[in-house]
């Protein structure tokens, strides 16, 4: 499917940045806040389960960052789509920084990214032949991340971390919605389509 400029909703720079900036600032503040740590750890050096979940989330963010790199390097993305892909990648970098910072503050060790070649193999980057292929991959990953974040919310022992996961999920939904629109697909039928 050919993706036209009209089909792609490119958010205004100011609005987009202000939205993600708020998320990152609040998330970092929450994750770094003494009250959060006090509430989540209650004297223990760290909650290893929460750290493990955050590290899996960080792994997803690394994958997202590298997926957008693969898309950008493919030569398949037209200029306005490429700009949006780069913007989305910047969001995922903010997510990764936030998660890695939280993991460190909780006494854990953030998982490192794999090589770009590893991500290319896992995501079958060699099968990407068109802009729509790249957008389909990005949309699939954004939807997967959305559902992953929503799915781990009940497992967090610190409620503040659950809230951060929900806010990260909202970011992924924003990405997915724009990608879905760019692909010319309709909105999901009915309410509450995510996380189920």
């Amino acid at each position, binding site marked *: 499917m050919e993706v036209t400029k009209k089909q792609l909703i490119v958010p205004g720079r100011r609005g987009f940045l202000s939205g993600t900036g708020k998320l990152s600032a609040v998330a970092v503040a929450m994750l770094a806040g003494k009250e959060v740590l006090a509430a989540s750890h209650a004297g223990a050096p760290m909650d*290893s*389960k929460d750290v*493990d*979940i955050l*590290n*899996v989330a960080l*792994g*997803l963010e690394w*994958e997202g960052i590298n997926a957008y790199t693969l898309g950008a390097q493919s030569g398949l993305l037209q200029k306005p789509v490429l700009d949006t892909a780069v913007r989305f990648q910047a969001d995922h970098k903010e997510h990764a920084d936030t998660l890695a910072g939280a993991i460190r503050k909780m006494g854990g060790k953030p998982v490192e990214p794999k090589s770009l070649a590893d991500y290319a*193999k*896992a*995501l*079958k980057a060699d099968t990407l032949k068109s802009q729509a292929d790249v957008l389909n991959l990005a949309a*699939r*990953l954004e*939807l*997967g*991340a*959305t*559902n*992953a974040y929503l*799915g*781990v919310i*009940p*497992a*967090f022992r610190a409620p503040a971390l659950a809230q951060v996961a929900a806010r990260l999920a909202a970011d992924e939904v924003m990405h997915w919605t724009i990608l879905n629109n760019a692909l010319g697909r309709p909105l999901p039928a009915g309410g509450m389509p995510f996380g*189920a």
Partner: protein
Amino acid sequence: MQAPFSFGADAARGKQLYESRCIGCHSIEENRAGPAHKGVFGRKAGLSKGFDYSPAVKSSKLIWNERTLDRWLANPEATIPGNKMGFAVPDAVDRADLIEYLRTAK
């Protein structure tokens, strides 16, 4: 309540559920944030080649079958304490369909 591994589990619906809920971290063929699922049914836990499992999973000695997968998906932490997965599938029918799909992932 339907038994989680009852006759009639729907692999096609399980595939849909997999692509909706599991695909964020897993794929059949490749290790991602979670391990690849090809051949998982009947395999010992912690043996997807090249995946960095938690010590808890590696030492669990669990064999993945209907019962162990059902327990795992219902409550991973209760099944293997100390594992990395924070995602559960609360509905027994959903679990049965997912397990039926995983059975086909050879």
